[in-house]
C-alpha cells in the first residue's frame, strides 16, 4: 500500500464510518476495514474498479462524485476521503463543499503543482510536467484544475474551512505544514494531505 494511504489511515480512529470518494480498486478501504474496523463505503466511477471492490467484499456504489454525493445526508460519515482527485472535477469547489457537508471531517490529498521537479520540468524543458504523481500527457490527463499546496491552503482558509492537520509528503517523508513553512513545503512536497472540517 502506498505511503499516502498509510498517512490517511493514521488520521482515522478505529470503529468510524468512512466514505472513500473515488475509491479505485478499494486498497485503502480494505486496509481500513481489516485493520481499523471501519464501516467503510466507496464511490467509484470506473465499472472495472467497482468490480474489483466487489471481489474484495467491499460496499461500493458506482457513481460520480459531482452528481452522486448529494444523495448522502448531512454529516452521515465521520470522515470522507478524497485522494488525488479534486483537481479532476469540473467544479472542485462544489465537490469540496459536498465532502464537508456529507462528512463530519474530510481528508483531501492533492498532487502539488509547485513541487520542485514540476517547476524544473516546466522551467528547463518548457513542456508540461510529467512526474510520478502526474504521469499523463497534457492531452490525455484527467486533471482539469491543478493547484499547489499553497493554493489549496489559501483556498480553504478563504472559505472558512478549519484545517486540523496539513501534511507534506515527499516519497516516504511526512512533515507538518504550517503558515510559517508553507513556502518551503510547497517547494519540496510532492503531495499535500489535509484534514479539514466545516
Amino acid at each position: 500500500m502506498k505511503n499516502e494511504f498509510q498517512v490517511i489511515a493514521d488520521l482515522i480512529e478505529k470503529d468510524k464510518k468512512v466514505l472513500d470518494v473515488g475509491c479505485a480498486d478499494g486498497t485503502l478501504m480494505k486496509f481500513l476495514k481489516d485493520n481499523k474496523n471501519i464501516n467503510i463505503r466507496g464511490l467509484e466511477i470506473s465499472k472495472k474498479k467497482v468490480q474489483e471492490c466487489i471481489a474484495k467484499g467491499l460496499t461500493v456504489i458506482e457513481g460520480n462524485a459531482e452528481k452522486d454525493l448529494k444523495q448522502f445526508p448531512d454529516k452521515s460519515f465521520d470522515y470522507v476521503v478524497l485522494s488525488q482527485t479534486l483537481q479532476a472535477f469540473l467544479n472542485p469547489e462544489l465537490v469540496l463543499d459536498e465532502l464537508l457537508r456529507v462528512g463530519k471531517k474530510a481528508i483531501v490529498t492533492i498532487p502539488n503543482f509547485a513541487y520542485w521537479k514540476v517547476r524544473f520540468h516546466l522551467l528547463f524543458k518548457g513542456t508540461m510536467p510529467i512526474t510520478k504523481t502526474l504521469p499523463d500527457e497534457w492531452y490525455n490527463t484527467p486533471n482539469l484544475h491543478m493547484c499547489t499546496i499553497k493554493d489549496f491552503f489559501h483556498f480553504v482558509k478563504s472559505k472558512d474551512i478549519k484545517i486540523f492537520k496539513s501534511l507534506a509528503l515527499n516519497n516516504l517523508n511526512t512533515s507538518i505544514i504550517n503558515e510559517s513553512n508553507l513556502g518551503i513545503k510547497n517547494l519540496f512536497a510532492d503531495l499535500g494531505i489535509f484534514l479539514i472540517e466545516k
Partner: protein
Amino acid sequence: MNIEKNIKTLVVKKPLKLDCGKTIENFPIAYETYGSLNSKKDNAILVFHALTGDQFVTGINPVTNKDGWWSYAVGPDKAINTNKYFVICSNVIGGCMGSYGPSHKDPDQKIFGTNFPVITINDMVNAQYNLLDHFGIDKLFSITGGSMGGMQVLQFISNFPDKSKTVIPIATTSSHSAQNIAFNELGRQAITADSNWKDGNYALNETNPGKGLAVARMAAHITYLSKKGLQEKFGRKLQEREDLKFGFDADFQIESYLRYQGSVFVDRFDANSYLYITRAMDYFDLAKQFKGNLSDAFINTKAKFFIISFTSDWLYPTQENKDIVIALNSIGADVGFVEIKSDKGHDSFLLDVPDFLSALKNFLDKSYEEN
C-alpha cells in the same frame, strides 16, 4: 396442461388477507428447491421470479423440458452456487405453474377465470413468506430476483425487515412507470380482444385466446431487448427468402422470431394469469405505501443491499434502480450499486453476461464469508 405430477406444493392453511380486501386460505404455493439447507439453516436464498417465470429456476424445467429461466446464474459452482446455498423459488400466486391462480377452481368447483381476486406484489410476498416457516428458516441469507422478481425483493424486505441478511434487487423499480403500465395494458388488450378469451371463461368454453396472448408476448418481448441488440442480431435480414414477397407473411427474420416467441409462450402460459400478474406489477408503488417516502420502506432493516442495473435496459433503466440506492443512502443503509455494461437490454439479467454473474457471485460469496 397436465403439470401436477412434477410440482411440489405447500398448502397454506392460514388465511391471507389480500390488498383487494378478500381473504384466501387453504391455497397452494408451488415451489422448487436446489442444493441443501445446512444444519445452521443459514445458507438459504429465496429467489423471486419475473412476470413469466416459475419455480423452475435452473436445470431442466420438467413441464416445458427447457432450461430453467435462470440457468446461467443458478446451479453448482455458478454465481448462485447450489453446492453452497439452498435455493428456494416459488410460483407467484396468480401464476399458472401450480400456485393458486385464475385457472384454479373456486370453492364451488368452478374455474375462477376473472373471478380470481386481483392480487398485488405485496400479496405475492406475503404468500411466499410461508415457505420460511415450512423449512424452519429463521433468517434467509439472501433474497434476489430481477424485474418483477426485484419488486418482490423490495417488498419482502420492507414487510419482513429482519428476515434476510442480504438483499439483491436486479433490473427493477420501486414503482411502475407510465411507460411500464402502457406496455402491460397493450398486452392485456391483446388478450381480451381475442374472441376466444370469452370474458376469461375460455376453459369452460374449451377455447384458448392464444392469438391474443401471443401478441401480448411479442410486444413485451420487444421491451426486453435493446435497439442495438435487435439491430445486431436481426438487422433487416430476410427470413428464408431472397427478396421481399410483397405480402404480409414474415419477410423479416425479426418478424419470424417474434412470431415464434409468441407461439411457444402460449404453450406454457395462461392468458388470465398474464392479466393478473401484469396488473400486480402496475399496482406496485412501494413509496406510495409509505406516504411517498421510499426510504421509509427500508427504515427498519439492517440488511446489506446490492443493486444491479444494465446500461441498455430501457424497461427498468439505471435511474430507476439508482432511485432505490438513493433512498437507501439517505437513511445510511448498507448499499452497493453497480451498472453492468451490456447491449442485451432488460433480458441481460437472464443471459450470459460475465460481469453481471461475477459481481453477483462475488457479492454473495464475500458476504457469506463474513457471516
